[in-house]
């Protein structure tokens, strides 16, 4: 997932929201639960203190009696954490009553610590018990028989606060685990949702790659309603682009036809005329012819666009060319030996490869004594030069070849070293222009059997 991608945006926003909301929800749930548990514990203590107060202080005569009912069995178990204590407030020396669980210890009084009473008159406090355990205690001040003029007593009931803490901690642990699992689940679902939701875009990506590599000519597949218009627009664009290229090609061809025939007429007429004017016209018409060929080729190259480049199987181009050249050079009985891997494919237009190979093979056939060798090789991708697969094509003949100096000059436009061999002399420079337009190269060398060897390097698909 790249930083600047739709998937990244969707995923990070969804994940951030999840990670923000889940802890907040956790805090709220935890707080509510803790308050609830505390309230219910306090309610139990309140009930106990009320019951003990009513039980012990019911009679207005005499000192308070130990409660007749046990209420809580743990009041009998020493240091159980459940305690009660009834102490006189006004007479410090009077006897105090305590639960068996308290033994010789006593409970601290919230009144003594200046704890304010709640609306019902009960005072709440957290304290340490006789065994050092945390306690929650509640104190109620009441008079004997609830009569206002009788002596006041403090009634304290305590329960183990650690039990409460255990309960809350246990809940917190389970809540955290559950929320964490939910978070992980949500993030995973988000990831899946993003991937699944953006699947059609991946499909488009793949489709475009297929178009670029030439495997397909249109963007195919059933795409969702939202991007379906994009697909049809893109296909229309590719189609119209192809049409424009085709039309330009046709126009160029028509222009060639329209210009070359009159030019042939002028040339023939001028050559027949033996005056100075005739030779001048012939010379100039020849230059015009070269220019037309050159710029028509240029124009044709310019119509090639990078949007939907073709892929051309090399062997399928070589076969008809060799067949045609064998016929054209039938008299010479030149043998054309071809070595071409069947899977060699050229990343470019068929016509351009045809022009390059046709011109090279035709030249080689004109000059060869008996044999022309065409060798095609595909070199793998090189990471060092960051280039894709390359086609390496060599056309070599066993003819007279060229000197180093001739080889250096021959690439120049329109140059012909030998006027006795037919041809317009543009063949090789067109090959060089075409190779260059594909960011390839065309080099001349001496072939092992004496003639000229032309090395072409082109992008492979």
């Amino acid at each position, binding site marked *: 997932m790249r930083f600047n991608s739709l998937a990244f945006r969707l995923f990070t926003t969804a994940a951030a929201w999840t990670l923000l909301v889940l802890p907040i929800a956790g805090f709220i749930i935890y707080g509510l639960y803790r308050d609830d548990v505390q309230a219910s514990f306090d309610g139990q203590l309140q009930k106990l203190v009320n019951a003990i107060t009513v039980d012990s202080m019911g009679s207005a005569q005499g000192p308070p009696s130990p409660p007749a009912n046990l209420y809580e069995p743990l009041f009998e178990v020493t240091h159980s954490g459940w305690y009660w204590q009834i102490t006189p407030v006004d007479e410090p020396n009077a006897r105090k009553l305590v639960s068996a669980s308290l033994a010789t210890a006593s409970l601290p009084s919230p009144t003594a610590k200046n704890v304010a009473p709640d609306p019902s008159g009960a005072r709440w406090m957290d304290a340490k018990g006789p065994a050092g355990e945390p306690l929650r205690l509640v104190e109620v001040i009441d008079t004997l028989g609830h009569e206002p003029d009788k002596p006041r007593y403090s009634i304290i009931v305590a329960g183990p606060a650690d039990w409460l803490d255990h309960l809350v901690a246990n809940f917190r642990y389970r809540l955290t685990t559950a929320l964490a699992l939910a978070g992980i689940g949500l993030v995973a679902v988000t990831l899946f949702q993003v991937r699944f939701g953006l699947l059609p875009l991946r499909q488009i990506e793949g489709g475009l790659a297929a178009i670029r590599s030439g495997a397909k000519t249109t963007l195919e597949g059933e795409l969702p309603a939202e991007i379906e218009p994009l697909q049809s627009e893109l296909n229309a664009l590719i189609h119209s682009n192809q049409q424009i290229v085709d039309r330009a090609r046709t126009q160029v*061809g028509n222009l060639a036809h329209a210009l070359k025939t009159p030019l042939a007429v002028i*040339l*023939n007429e001028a050559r027949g005329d033996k005056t100075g004017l005739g030779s001048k016209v012939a010379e100039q018409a020849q230059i015009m012819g070269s220019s037309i060929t050159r710029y028509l080729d240029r124009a044709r190259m310019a119509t090639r666009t990078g949007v939907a480049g073709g892929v051309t199987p090399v062997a399928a181009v070589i076969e008809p*060319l060799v067949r045609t050249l064998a016929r054209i050079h039938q*008299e010479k009985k030149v043998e054309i030996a071809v070595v071409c891997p069947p899977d060699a494919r050229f990343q470019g237009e068929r*016509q351009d490869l045809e022009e390059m*190979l*046709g011109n090279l093979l035709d030249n080689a056939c004109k000059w060869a004594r008996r044999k022309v060798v065409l060798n095609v090789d595909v070199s793998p991708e090189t990471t060092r030069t960051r280039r894709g697969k390359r086609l390496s094509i060599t056309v070599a003949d066993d003819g007279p070849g060229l000197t180093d100096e001739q080889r250096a000059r021959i690439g120049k436009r329109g140059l012909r070293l030998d006027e006795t061999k037919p041809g317009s002399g543009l063949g090789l420079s067109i090959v060089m222009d075409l190779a260059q337009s594909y960011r390839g190269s065309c080099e001349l060398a001496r072939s092992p059997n004496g003639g000229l060897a032309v090395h072409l390097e082109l992008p492979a698909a």
Partner: protein
Amino acid sequence: MRVLVVEDDKDLNRQLVGALADAGYAVDSASDGEEGYFLGDTEPYDIVILDIGLPKMDGISILEQWRRSDRKMPVIILTARDRWSDKVAGMDAGADDYLAKPFHMEELLARVRAQMRRASGHASSEIECGPLRLDTKSARVTCDGQQIKLTSHEYRLLAYLMHHNGRVVSRTELVEHLYEQDFDRDSNTIEVFIGRLRKKIPVDLIETVRGLGYRLSEKPGQA
């Protein structure tokens, strides 16, 4: 040797006809596809110069139809369309050579000669028959090194016989291959020209095969 030129540009057509006639061929011409197809289909031409872009019927279709109906004369395509795909299409349709415009007339004539030679099975541009020697390039005939001056009709007749030496050639065949379509075809004129040739050539190589025609043989026959 009869040549058909199918070319719609009338200036180029005229130039081609002129150059070929000057080179000693009997030339017919057509300026549209239908006419060209019809002529090639009905007349026995020795070679056809065919343009591709023609009104009414294009050159490739013409050529394909000729080849389908077994018309085997050599065809040189002469066209402005010089892409290799066009050349492949032309050669696959049955053409024997391909020349792109603009062209040198000498080059066209050289290719016409080459096709003629190929069709009659001769390897070089010079054809020999006993002491007779025909240079198709310069249209000259020599006998034992001595040049023989011939009129264009005489040259055509002798060249045809030399291209097909050793074979009996009928008068009808000679008439069909030596004269333009609208020439007054009288087979008696052939006899007249044969007579003239026999006078000009020191050794008698032209043999009359009774009821069949003429044969050029390497050894002088009994006159």
